[in-house]
């Protein structure tokens, strides 16, 4: 998964980046399966590796990539960017080193046999309102995408 992630940010051709991202997403779906979350793993494969990546590949083919491959790949502020990212990494490492272990060593037992049913019950019961808000968000996103991609409004 990390190899896929590294390849996403280093490849020259955006198509290669997208394929590496698909590898990373599938690896993450397998990690979800390890964490006893089969429904999230399925959603990850179908929505991410299926839907969103097809969208990315379409757009890569719509915009011309021939010229951008031959150009400089990193922007002019990449030194500052790397310094900022290194500072963030140092922060993570410092937190990891200084933090005392507050996590329980053994994970609690999760209900594993009817995960999808439990997720659905919670989604339509306790999380009803956020669910409706999410549908509104998707509607807004559809309209926004169409308006943005239209030639003349």
């Amino acid at each position: 998964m990390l190899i896929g992630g590294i390849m996403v940010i280093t490849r020259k051709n955006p198509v290669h980046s997208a394929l590496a991202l698909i590898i990373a997403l599938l690896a993450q779906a397998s990690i979800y399966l390890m964490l006893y979350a089969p429904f999230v793993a399925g959603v990850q494969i179908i929505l991410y590796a299926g839907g969103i990546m097809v969208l990315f590949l379409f757009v890569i083919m719509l915009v011309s990539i021939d010229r951008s491959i031959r150009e400089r790949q990193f922007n002019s502020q990449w030194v500052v960017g790397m310094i900022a990212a290194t500072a963030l990494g140092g922060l993570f490492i410092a937190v990891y080193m200084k933090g005392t272990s507050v996590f329980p060593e053994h994970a609690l037992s999760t209900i594993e046999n009817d995960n999808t049913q439990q997720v659905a019950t919670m989604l339509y019961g306790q999380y009803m309102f956020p669910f409706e808000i999410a549908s509104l968000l998707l509607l807004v996103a559809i309209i926004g995408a169409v308006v943005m991609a239209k030639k003349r409004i």
Partner: protein
Amino acid sequence: MEPLLHITTTHYLVLGAALFLLGVIGVLTRRNVVIVLMSIELILNAVNLNLVAFSRMWGGLHGQIFAIFVITDAAAEAAVGLGILIAFFRNKETVNIDEVNLLKW
């Protein structure tokens, strides 16, 4: 004898932090807008990984629900972002972010 491969929550968190860092590096250093958007997807995936790991740790399902909401957000964000990218490419004939310097002083 303690089993050698005992994966705790901390391992998942370290993996999520590394993935987040890769995404940040991609956002801050790449020039191609498409790859910047893909790096944002990496960041969102790191967050998802943390949510599901915590959900496993506490034995509840709230983290998984939130992971599904984050995936929904990512889909909306990708659709709008790629729409903006198409409009931008039509106007400027390029996909490099450092040529979007209209607001530069």
